[in-house]
């Protein structure tokens, strides 16, 4: 084999090995630093107690409130982003003419390019007082605020991935449906969308993963109260916000430090499962 080619091959080989090494390095250190939390609390107390008082004496490391906070804002975000993202995808792929499409597509993708701290500032300085005024609630930094901001952030993920999936549906399907007398609406809802189902589902799960892992926004606008919310207007403390807010001020090697890594393990497992589901959905389509 040519010498040059061999060098090129080994470079790409090393690159791929490196990413795997980094991945396993991160996973290993995550578990290495996170599992010791079980020396200070039982796994049942850690997962199912809602008392998060890490700096009290004695400290309490129950993360149920944090898990609840994460899921409330993430599900809220999906309720907002699925109709918006999917609606935009359907419009761009099926209804808009070429010129509108060429303007709309990059504009929506521009949303993904806005740094999350800018979203956070927007939620803190504008949306919070706005919610207080409009909904007559005492607190503007709450689960609802975080859901709206996260929802807007997830829209470009859902819309661009769903749009890709919709546009790969062969035109013959649309033509066949229209030829059978179905109108455009019926064709989209009953033929195109079901045919693109796996791509659409993948985009939603990816959006879920993005929302549950997003840190800056929830740190800034979710309110940070470690409690199980009674309403969407209560402040919550999602998992990533907890880790980000507390890690810098925690002495290394303390139970609190290990508990924060324990939260990171839970987050990792949740996103890992969501990626597995995507792989499963995509694999099934390929078969």
């Amino acid at each position, binding site marked *: 084999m040519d010498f040059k080619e061999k060098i090129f091959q080994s470079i790409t080989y090393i690159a791929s090995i490196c990413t795997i090494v980094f991945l396993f390095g991160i996973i290993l250190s995550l578990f290495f630093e996170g599992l010791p939390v079980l020396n200070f609390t039982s796994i049942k107390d850690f997962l199912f107690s809602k008392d998060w008082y890490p700096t009290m004496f004695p400290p309490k490391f129950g993360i149920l409130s944090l898990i609840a906070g994460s899921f409330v804002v993430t599900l809220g975000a999906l309720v907002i982003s699925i109709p918006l993202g999917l609606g935009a995808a359907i419009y761009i792929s099926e209804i808009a003419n070429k010129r509108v499409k060429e303007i709309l597509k990059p504009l929506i993708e521009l949303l993904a390019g806005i740094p999350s701290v800018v979203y956070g500032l927007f939620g803190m300085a504008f949306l919070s007082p706005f919610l207080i005024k409009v909904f007559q609630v*005492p607190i503007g930094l709450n689960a609802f605020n975080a859901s709206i901001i996260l929802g807007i952030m997830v829209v470009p993920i859902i819309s661009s991935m769903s749009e890709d999936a919709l546009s790969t549906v062969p035109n013959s399907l649309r033509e066949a449906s229209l030829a059978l007398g179905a109108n455009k609406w019926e064709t989209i809802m009953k033929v195109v969308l079901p045919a693109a189902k796996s791509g659409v589902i993948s985009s939603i799960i990816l959006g879920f993963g993005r929302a549950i892992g997003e840190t800056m926004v929830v740190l800034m606008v979710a309110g940070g109260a470690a409690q199980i919310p009674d309403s969407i207007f209560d402040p919550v403390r999602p998992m990533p916000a907890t880790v980000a807010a507390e890690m810098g*001020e925690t002495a*290394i090697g303390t139970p609190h430090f290990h508990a924060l890594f324990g939260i990171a393990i839970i987050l990792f497992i949740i996103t890992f499962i969501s990626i597995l589901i995507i792989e499963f959905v995509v694999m099934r389509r390929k078969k």
Partner: protein
Amino acid sequence: MKFKILAILTVLAVLAVPAFAQDNRLTVAGSTTVLPIAQAAAEAYMDMHPEINISVRGGGSSVGIASIIAGTADIGNASRHAKTKELATARENGINLYENVVANDGIAVVVNPSNSINGLTTAQLKSIYAGEVQNWKELGGPNKPIVIISRDTSSGTFEVFNNLVMSDSPVAAGALKLASNNAVATTVSNTPGAIGYVGLGYLNASIKAITIDNVMPTKKTIQNKEYPIARTLHMYTNGKPTGLAKKFIDFIVSAKGQEIVEGQGFVSIN
């Protein structure tokens, strides 16, 4: 031959640069409360001594103390005292954590300007943060639910507040816990029922500081310890500061340095 000499000289020059820079370089890391002081002082010091290079990082009080123990910084900033555990870890590693007091800081309790409350007692403040008093009218204010705003439980500011006001009993679970002084100031300014606490340097016209036990947080009341929620800010070194670290800390506690401290909204130690 000529080429060889040149090569050797080049190598020596490259090796000499870091050795030479070592004496002129100072790394400061730690508490975000002390950060503005350290940054402004570093800029002023480097203006006077252009050959000196001081790099200042944040990270939090624990990071400041941990980097002294790990030897990754020359000066570690902390808005609290070193904990027993940190002192023990330092001793194990042969490090002697030495505390240099560089400034005074008062924690002002603030409410929304629309609130008619002008003062509280420490006991009232504690019952608000414990979640026992939930409406301003119970304290003679407007009929509005109290929105408790606290700092994150691991921040140095929270620790001081928790210690001096709460006597280490828990803050209500429903309290908002925000990540920075600025976030607290912003939220109090746009939330009518809010009460929060910030460093004296973060007071502005859009939030209203109130008296605690009839004492207004001012430079004077913090210096003479009349105001109940006050603390000292520290720069930790490994043993008594020497060399450049000593010169820098001496500069901060000098009259000129304390002017910078005041300029950043803190209270001088003199």
